[in-house]
């Protein structure tokens, strides 16, 4: 009995650890090209006078810290659209489900939303694992997903609009900044992440990018930790050792609440932000809200939006959010903040609403065609457009330093929005791939157009 129990306990733990490893970065996502792919049963045209909008964010588990606010901001935007009369004369109705930070459950809940509830669109997912898990469901049932979080790229689906940053809209500009004199002139890089698809792919792109900048492999150190890891003693000691001799920076793709023990350990072991800055791609205002910011002072984050951006649009966005929090009496009260994925959710939902108005229907095929050409004045103060070809947003990039009040001081920004590169030009095998859902390509990962152009036909 005891022997059995011990083995079982160890096995359970083993599966736990292995789970985070089991998602290898898929080189290409199988995507269905033809618009008429929906062999799936769609519920009969809704005769009710509401349009259902699915919200698929973890409200419990390790990702709840980040994803709960996305549900809240989505509900706020729905209220805002409803207050202006809704869409096509109908009110929007939110259908909120909780996939509980459990990746297979994301797929189940997505299927439930599309088949049982018959939602017109879904806003959801945070981690790339969860997105990869729901992708086949959306493609099989011809659903529409707006994905609001920065991710690793190397993907373009006909059924997804990516309103978060691709690597060239976040990771690459951040590394360029750190290599510049203003950013500290880093010569050595520690690529540190949680062990799953987003950090692994991002770090792969960054490694190729650093090679292109003549940084040798000796000056790059790549480390991964399991989900929920909390013991960073050895890793911080290794970073310290690695940093001797050359200016070093840490590029962190640590996700979820492992960030707290990591930064605490950094500060306690005496590593200062001005000597070894850490730039994080998953730490924003929301993540800083629940933690003691003292150990993080001066460390960096790269995003497409910061709450501290000083534009009239952002003031209005923050005011609307604060009013909503107050009116709904949300937990956290006046301490609630706005952040990048919230802005991306807000922009995405508005663009979807504009597309529905333009198409005159919520039919996925029609809305998808209309969505690609929408523009929207974002809270960050730029007129943002959604790219009809690769389904990504054009986004400005900001780099900010953590301040004691949990906000960011912006130390660098791009002049204007940057177009996303769904396939990284730095990875040899994906540099030739094209994501273009317009004629004649109509493909998410092709090296040749699906349909021959007139030139090609003439040549034949």
């Amino acid at each position, binding site marked *: 009995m*005891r022997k059995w129990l011990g083995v079982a306990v*160890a096995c359970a733990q083993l599966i736990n650890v292995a789970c985070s490893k089991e998602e290898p970065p898929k080189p290409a996502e199988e995507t269905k090209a033809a618009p008429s792919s929906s062999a799936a049963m769609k519920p009969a045209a809704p005769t009710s006078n509401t349009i259902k909008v699915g919200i698929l964010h973890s409200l419990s588990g390790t990702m709840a810290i980040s994803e709960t606010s996305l549900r809240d901001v989505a509900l706020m935007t729905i209220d805002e659209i409803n207050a202006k009369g809704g869409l096509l004369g109908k009110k929007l109705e939110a259908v909120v489900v909780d996939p509980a930070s459990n990746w297979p459950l994301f797929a189940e809940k997505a299927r439930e939303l599309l088949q049982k509830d018959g939602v017109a669109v879904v806003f959801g997912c945070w981690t790339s694992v969860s997105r990869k898990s729901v992708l086949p469901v959306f493609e099989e049932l011809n659903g529409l997903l707006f994905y609001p979080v920065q991710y690793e790229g190397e993907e373009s689906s006909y059924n997804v609009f990516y309103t978060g940053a691709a690597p060239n809209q976040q990771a690459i500009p951040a590394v360029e900044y750190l290599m510049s004199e*203003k950013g500290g002139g880093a010569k050595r890089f520690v690529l540190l992440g949680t062990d799953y698809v987003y950090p692994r792919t991002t770090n792969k792109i960054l490694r190729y990018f650093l090679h292109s900048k003549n940084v040798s492999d000796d000056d790059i150190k790549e480390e991964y930790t399991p989900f929920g890891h909390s013991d960073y003693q050895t890793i911080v000691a290794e970073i310290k050792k690695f940093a001797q001799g050359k200016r070093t920076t840490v590029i962190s793709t640590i996700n979820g609440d492992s960030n707290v023990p990591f930064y605490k350990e950094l500060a306690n072991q*005496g590593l200062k932000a001005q000597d070894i800055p850490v730039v994080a791609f998953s730490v924003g205002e929301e993540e800083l809200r629940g933690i003691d910011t003292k150990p993080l002072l001066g460390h960096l984050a790269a995003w497409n939006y910061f709450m501290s951006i000083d534009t009239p649009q952002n003031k209005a966005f923050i005011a609307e959010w604060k009013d909503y929090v107050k009116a709904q009496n949300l937990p956290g009260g006046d301490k609630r903040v706005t952040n990048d994925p919230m802005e991306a959710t807000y922009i995405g939902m508005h663009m979807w609403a504009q597309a529905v108005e333009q198409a005159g229907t919520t039919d996925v095929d029609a809305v998808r065609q209309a969505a690609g050409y929408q523009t929207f004045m974002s809270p960050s103060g730029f007129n943002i457009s959604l790219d009809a070809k690769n389904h990504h947003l054009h986004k400005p990039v900001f780099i900010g330093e953590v301040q004691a009040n949990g906000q960011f001081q912006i130390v660098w920004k791009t002049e204007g929005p940057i177009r996303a590169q769904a396939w990284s030009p730095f990875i040899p095998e994906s540099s030739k791939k094209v994501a273009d859902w317009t004629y004649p390509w109509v493909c998410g990962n092709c090296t040749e157009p699906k349909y021959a152009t007139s030139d090609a036909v003439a040549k034949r």
Partner: protein
Amino acid sequence: MAALGGFAQLSGDDVAHAVRALGESGDPRAIRVLKALRDAELYVDDASHVLIRDKNGAMVDALSGAPVPASGHAATINNEIRRVLDTLIARLELKSPDPDERLEAVGELARRSNEEDAPAMRDALEHEKVRSVRRALVSALAEGDLASEDPKRRLGAVEAIEEAGALGLAPKLAALTTAPAEPDPAVRAAASRTISSLHRKQIFVDGAADVLYGMSTGSILLLSALGLAITFGLMRVINMAHGELVMIGAYATYATQVFFHEHLPVHESLYLVAAVPVALVASMLVGALLEVAVIRFLYGRPLETLLATYGLSLLLIQIVRSIFGAQNVLVENPPWLSGGTELFEDVVIPYNRMAVVVFTAVVVAFVAFVLRGTPLGLRVRAVTQNRPMAACMGISTARVDTWTFALGCGVGGLGGVALSQLGNVGPELGQGVIVDSFLVVVLGGVGKIAGSVVAAFGLGILNKVLEPIAGAVLGKIVVLLAVILVIQKRPQGLFAPRGRSVEAV
């Protein structure tokens, strides 16, 4: 001091410019302003006057030193400015009358290994009288001197590196061991000797680091497992809700912190001391309640207990989520637990981890004392060893069960106090703890507290030895495989209970 105007600007570039101008002005008042900016004590009021806030929160004018009423906003500071500041302050402090400040300045300049500062340091070396500062200067200059034309200087530099044991410079010395690169045989010999001595030191430092970090990891494992060693080990209750009692201890710490923050702000840094009994009592109460309400009806039925306690764990998580919200809550390290001390070169032990090791020792001693030295402990041992006989001797076994279970849960709560200082405090805290806890108890041998102690430290150190070699993910897998092998060989754990009681179980 005209440069002071720049501090009133919001833009980081303007402030950086002002900092450089001030650093080179040679004004004796400059250093105070620069230090105030570094420590975020520099303020600018609406009329662009630069003010310094002193330790007691009173404001003085940076130029005249006259007290002024508190007003204004903090001056802009970012990493670029901090980098400039650190160098400038170090350069100015190199001439400070206080030897401690000079020592600190040399350390700062050496860390930046800036060629520009070598002449100033050489200059300082000529006038320096204090031995420790002299030694720091020599070793700071050594790196630059390795490339010197003068063989004597190179030799001196190699010797200085050997004496200081500067591990980071070993790769640079390697270039001086071969003939064409280093013409002088004496320098070559010294360099080879220094490299091997540095190498020996490196092995020792790495080993010491593994043991220290492993003890720290092990002590956390032990703290979360110790309570389980009582409830599972002694009482044989498979308590899946044990992690949640750890979580309750952590939330009790949070509640104590909030109470101190609101009612006793003067003693806020002492909240952690008060949190220990609060967490103990809170978890004991919850534990006693669980025992009386649910667990006592399930003794001797392990599968039902497993299911029931799993349900209880979900219940407790949801209750905490309803009260405190799904978000993690903020538990700050008190100032006396922030930072760390450097035991050897590059091996920094943070105070919070040291405190956890000490705290673990205290808790283990406490548990041992309760079980060995109190009437309750005597009854607990009697009941767990032979229940019918103990009942015959007039011991109320039901009451002893409640107390034992509550004690195990209380110790779990103490683990929560320690965990709150290292990681996140959220409703799911316990979920990450429970599997490791069972692992420690089963590996150590069910029913043996000493076994749990050895197993926890063993696992901790093994983990830390493997981590640099295999990485955190693979390291953990290897540890778990090792545990499976050990349990295959020794199903009763490392420390098997001996004697007739074994057959009775």
